[in-house]
Each structure stands twice: as C-alpha cells, then as structure tokens.
C-alpha cells in the first residue's frame, strides 16, 4: 500500500512526531511504501538542526533526519509554517536576510500543494495531530 503521513504536533511537547516515526518504521517493515511525510504547524520543529536534547533523552529531530535519509524518503516541511517558526534553509535565510539557516539534512521546504499531491497519490493518508 502507498501511504503518506502528515504530522502536526510539536516534537518537543507532544507525542505526535514520535508516534509518526514509529508508524513509518512499522509501515516500511510491513512492506508498505511511503510516498511522502509532510510536517505542518508545530511539527516543522522536527526540521530544526539546532535542537539539543538532554543526554538521557532521544533527539527526535536527529532520529527523523537519520530515518528519512536512510530510506531516502520525501520529507517535506511546510514552508509557511517553517518560516514563522524560524526553520530556514539557505535560500530562505538569504531571501529574508536572516543570520543563519538551520534546516536539518534530509528535509525540504515546500508548500501545502505537496500535501494535496500526497493525498492524490497515496492509498492512505495518516495524520498525527496535536
């Protein structure tokens, strides 16, 4: 089955991003295909390369980054949600004259159209909300 996943909950204060990661791991293990993972609203914090976790806690951002790169998944961070929350890639940082870019490896910034496209090309769309 072709599955897309939308995450809206914050990785630091809600369970959604961890649940979504576990779901994606299980889906791939079971032989399903993941068409796209779309991060929206507070879930875009998953794309920050600057988050630091205490030593005895899992860094979910690093885990997601490693996961999407290992499986070469299409992982899209909603650009409108991201800009508001200070998640920028190099071109957005240059465009808005910000001092740094911080988008984690493996993710790309794009619009809601990517989510609609995922809906059109997937058998199932599973949301992990706040």
């Amino acid at each position, binding site marked *: 089955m072709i599955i897309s996943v*939308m995450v*809206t909950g914050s990785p630091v204060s809600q369970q959604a991003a961890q649940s979504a990661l576990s779901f994606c791991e299980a889906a791939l293990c079971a032989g399903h295909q993941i068409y796209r993972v779309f991060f*929206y*609203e507070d879930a875009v914090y998953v794309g920050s390369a600057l988050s630091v976790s205490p030593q005895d806690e899992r860094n979910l951002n690093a885990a997601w980054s490693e996961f999407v790169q290992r499986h070469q998944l299409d992982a899209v961070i909603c650009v*409108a*949600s991201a800009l508001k929350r200070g998640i920028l890639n190099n071109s957005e940082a240059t465009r808005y004259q910000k001092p740094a870019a911080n988008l984690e490896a493996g993710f790309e910034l794009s*619009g*809601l*159209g990517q*989510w*609609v*496209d995922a*809906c*059109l090309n997937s058998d199932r*769309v599973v*949301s992990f*909300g*706040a």
Partner: protein
Amino acid sequence: MKTLTFLARQAPFGSSSAKACLDMVLASAVFEQQVNYVFMDDGVWQLVRGHAPEGIGAKNVMAALQALELYGVEHIYALEESLTERQLTQAHLQIPVRLCSRAELSALVQSSDVVTAL
C-alpha cells in the same frame, strides 16, 4: 479527483488550528478536489460573524470564509448539535452552511478518501 473532508474543531482564536485548516481547504480547492469543510465542536465559532480580533492582536483569518465560494468550496457543513450546545443558530453565521447530524457526518466521513481534523 478525490474527496477530501476537513473537520474544523477548534475555536478561531487562541491557537493557529483554524487558519491551518482553512489553508489546507484552500490548497485542496486550488487542486480542484472535491472538498467537504465541516465545522464541529468549538470549530462552529469560526463561522460566527462579527469577530473583531484586532483587540487581541490577531488577524481575522475567518474573513477568508467569504472567499470559499470563489475557490469552488461549496460543501460547507456545521454539526447541528455543536451549534445547539452553544446556543448558536444559522442567523449568527457569516456564511450559509448545511446543518448536519452526527449520522450524516458519519456518512460524509465514510464517503471521503482523506479526512483531516484540525
């Protein structure tokens, strides 16, 4: 074409959920999909006319409800019991909506390809 159903369940101000849902509805409409936009629970407050959120430093995102027709979003519903619980009627709303029961909502969800609740 797919049928995408959106359940707007949060109050219009106090969180970004209402705008997040509206933006998804508009994006889906731009892609010319069949869109059902359902207001339920505290989400019915999004439909109420006369909001003046400038006083709390918020933007009146729900002013865009008026533009839904232009985007071709014609299937707009409010869960009747959510309105009733809040002592709201159609007369309080800024756009015409179809009232639906829980059973009708259930059928709507059943007939949808993708359901998103925000």
